């Protein structure tokens, strides 16, 4: 069921900070800061991760000229066990907080909840977003950082970045959140943790299809439909699913993927970027800035998440995935 926001909450500002390797990203010019130290001068990766969340929030607040005390809610999450980086950042931000976990789709699930709080009048300003830190995530989901395993061409690189949006009441000068679709947990029997794009593509397909159908729209109504982190292969699969459903491939040009484009054509990163910070960083820097510059008028942001854990993989389970979408417009 699609959510239509009558009050059209605004995406007032986005704060995005990223790590040293993300300077290579084709989107890095849109980020607010790239840090040379992947640990943000902290002792552990997890502490650096927390710091990154705080700084992304600070940038979002600073741009809008609001203070911590003006913020009513803080919504966010990350990929570390029990989301301690975000939970600990919430402790320091001292704002009423709900942690949300939708794996790499958390950026959008957070924004949906923040928009609902705004819609019902409970929130004047809310921070919503997600983050991931390469070292902290890899050690948990895969191998130690310095372990020499061979990643296949289907693998993706977890991004070090945090993206947070400031969501507020409707203002014409900012992009408006018109509608949202909450995705189901979709499982097409994929079980390879080094091929996440293949697992997530069906979830993105279902969410986009359901959103378009219920909004009575076609793909060409959008200037951009941007998925989160399907990677190059996942994007190919998503387009393949649309083609098999009877849509001509030339109609699919608005369909792009943040993960596939993130590091350009650099083969070091195999199929592209991934991680909760990937979609958050691109959505809340590049997309917002391009909307305000007038490049895009109507955009569908579809964050995709693989809902697995190392435990479920080792127990031989397949990978359920989800995708959440928001429709944003700019006058």
């Amino acid at each position, binding site marked *: 069921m699609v959510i239509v926001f009558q009050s059209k909450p605004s995406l007032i500002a986005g704060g995005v900070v990223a790590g040293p390797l993300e300077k290579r990203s084709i989107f890095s010019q849109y980020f607010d800061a790239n840090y040379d130290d992947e640990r943000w001068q902290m*002792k*552990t*990766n*997890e502490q650096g991760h927390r710091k990154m969340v705080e700084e992304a929030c600070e940038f979002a607040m600073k741009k809008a000229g609001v203070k911590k005390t003006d913020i009513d809610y803080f919504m966010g999450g990350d990929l570390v066990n029990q989301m301690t980086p975000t939970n600990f950042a919430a402790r320091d931000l001292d704002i009423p907080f709900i942690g949300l976990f939708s794996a790499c789709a958390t950026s959008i699930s957070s924004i949906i909840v923040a928009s609902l709080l705004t819609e019902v009048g409970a929130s004047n300003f809310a921070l919503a977003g997600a983050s991931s830190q390469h070292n902290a995530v890899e*050690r948990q989901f895969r*191998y*130690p*950082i*310095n*372990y*020499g*395993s*061979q*990643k*296949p*061409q*289907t693998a993706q690189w977890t991004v070090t970045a945090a993206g947070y949006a400031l969501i507020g009441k409707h203002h014409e000068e900012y992009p408006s959140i018109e509608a949202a679709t909450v995705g189901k947990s979709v499982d*097409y*029997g*994929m079980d390879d943790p080094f*091929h996440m794009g*293949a697992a997530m593509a*069906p979830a993105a*397909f279902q969410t986009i299809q359901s959103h378009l159908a219920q909004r009575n729209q076609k793909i060409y109504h959008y200037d951009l439909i941007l998925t989160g982190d399907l990677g190059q*292969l996942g994007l*190919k*699969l998503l387009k*393949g*699913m649309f083609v*098999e*459903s009877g849509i001509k491939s030339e109609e699919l040009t608005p369909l792009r993927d943040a993960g596939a484009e993130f590091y350009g054509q650099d083969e070091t990163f195999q199929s592209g970027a991934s991680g909760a910070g990937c979609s958050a960083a691109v959505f809340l820097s590049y997309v917002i800035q391009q909307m305000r510059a007038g490049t895009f008028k109507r955009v569908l942001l579809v964050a995709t998440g693989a809902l697995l854990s190392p435990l479920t993989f080792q127990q031989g389970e397949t990978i359920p995935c989800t995708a959440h979408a928001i429709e944003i417009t700019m006058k």
Partner: protein
Amino acid sequence: MEKEQYQQLEQNVTPKPPYFKNVAKAFLVGGLICTIGQAVSLFYIIFFDFTEATAGNPTVATMVFFAMILTGFGLYKKIGQFAGAGSAVPVTGFGNAVISAAIEHRSEGLVLGVGGNLFKLAGSVVLFGVVSAFFVALIKFILVTIGVVSW
């Protein structure tokens, strides 16, 4: 779209691993590591009091030392990405598995972090090495006892 139909699409889109290239790279790098091992062996035989039969132990230890240096400076993972099994199968790969886990878990302290996680990757090698050695030796012992084979 049905699951089976999607799995068909996935099979078509996903590139197959470059089998020949991967095997060739594993062969070259693995062979090279063993050749370096042979040189280390020779070093111990010539300059220390080791024979060809006993040089294996110090050779293995030295190779693991090299693995520590390469792992610490983040080079082993690059070799691993290139060589695959070529750098995983030699004992340096075993060293890399232990040492990378140790470095990784330093932030949780020496006892709970390093101590508790040292063998989280390499533990299976120790487990299956010891258990298979046990059963192989047991079977041979039984076969010798009933007179089928001799030591």
